């Protein structure tokens, strides 16, 4: 079934789509990391409005399908006068969605650090912000990295959903080619292979990062307060 001619014919269009997939994923992931960290910190803020807004945001995003969120951004926002390109909509939708999940990871990572670490920081006069930056986050990162790594691997595949808002990513390029040529098997097999070629090195990269983290420097909890 496979012919070299077909492959050569389809490949440029698919690779172009793959580039878009990678660009959307990386941008969305970077945005989600930053926003996720901020939202995660807001979740445990001492100011209740921040806690409330971040909690509602997270619950809402996690309680609705990503597909629907993309539709909202691409098809509903224009009614309010906000017209975004498929690319921007895709990046934004993915980022908003991943922010919610990452926020929970950051929050749980921060909360996994023993209370004694905060108290030790406080006892030498550190502000909460300074403690977070110098004491808590550097330790929390060791706990968080595996989960963040999972998200990093999965965002490339989740980004296929942006094809529904007419972005010519890898998935959409495949669909277009398939419906034009009826060579569904060949094209989707190639699409699968390209997704895998993106995901596999990503997973390996995450493994490498995890291995570099020195687990021996985790906090050791000794005794309980009497």
């Amino acid at each position: 079934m496979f012919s070299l001619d077909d492959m050569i014919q389809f490949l440029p269009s698919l690779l172009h789509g793959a580039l878009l997939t990678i660009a959307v994923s990386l941008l969305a992931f970077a945005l989600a990391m930053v926003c996720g960290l901020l939202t995660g910190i807001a979740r445990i803020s001492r100011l209740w409005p921040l806690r409330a807004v971040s909690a509602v945001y997270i619950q809402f995003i996690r309680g609705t399908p990503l597909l629907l969120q993309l539709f909202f951004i691409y098809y509903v926002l224009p009614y309010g006068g906000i017209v975004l390109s498929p690319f921007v909509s895709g990046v934004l939708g993915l980022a908003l969605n991943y922010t919610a999940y990452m926020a929970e990871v950051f929050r749980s990572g921060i909360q996994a650090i023993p209370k004694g670490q905060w108290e030790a920081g406080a006892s030498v006069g550190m502000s909460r912000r300074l403690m977070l930056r110098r004491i808590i986050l550097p330790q929390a990162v060791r706990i968080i990295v595996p989960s963040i790594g999972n998200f990093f691997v999965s965002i490339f595949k989740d980004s296929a959903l942006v094809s529904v808002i007419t972005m010519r990513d890898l998935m959409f390029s495949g669909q277009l080619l398939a419906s034009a040529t009826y060579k569904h098997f060949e094209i989707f097999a190639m699409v699968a292979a390209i997704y895998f070629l993106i995901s596999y090195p990503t997973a390996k990269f995450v493994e490498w990062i995890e291995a570099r983290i020195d687990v021996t420097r985790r906090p050791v909890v000794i005794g309980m307060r009497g």
Partner: protein
Amino acid sequence: MNDAAEVAVVSGSDAQPIVQLERIWKSFGRLEVLTDVSLSVQKGEVVCIIGPSGAGKSTMLRCINHLENIDDGTIHFEGKPVYRYKQNGRVVVDPDSRIEAIRAQIGMVFQSFNLFPHLTVLGNVIEAPVHVLREPIAKARERAMVVLGKVGLVEKAQAYPHQLSGGQQQRVAIARALAMNPKVMLFDEATSALDPELVGEVLRVMRQLAREGMTMVVVTHEMDFARDVADRVVFMADGAIVEQGPPEVLFTAPRSPRTRQFLHSILNRNGGPEEPSPVP
């Protein structure tokens, strides 16, 4: 530090206390932990707080640097009300920056050490001087080596906490507090989590500090330490100070039956006053 030792001698006079707790009330939910507790600590004084577990000793200590919020009463630091207090009938809450500035002058040593595991010993010691006091790193390092010398751990400067014994970790924690040049040091059962053979090295450092005139408030179960080092021993039970006085008086002629009962149970378990008290 030398004149601090001299002040300690005259601390019986009515010099202004460095720390003063005035009618402190504190509860955790429905559990009353501190009921109308008052205590003052003079500069250069070593105050040991003893009592059964659940007496409120640690909670009282933690109120001094605002690790616990008090429900009522006033805490004074160097004569000024701090953290949260009533002024002209209104409740004043200090801004975080003032609370942090006061904490920076109060050293604290925890039962569970609470060293920063991702930083080296040196990193632990210079962390606050560099980031809170904004000292240049070179100066902070120099000072860190001095305080590490005091606790006998200069050669461990580049080690990570997990590479140290419990006794060494606790000495690093003391060095970390000392690096801030504190006006008072609080010890919250600093030897309770240690294996018995490691208790001595930590107590030695604490004795040395006391000798140098450091003002210390020490919650402890080490009766020998309290007897030898304290200028004053405070006995607490059920959220209140039952009795306080010089160690020779409190240990030999306690007035309250509650104190007698406590001392009796502790000393009996040890097989007599000559034996070192084990960690309960």
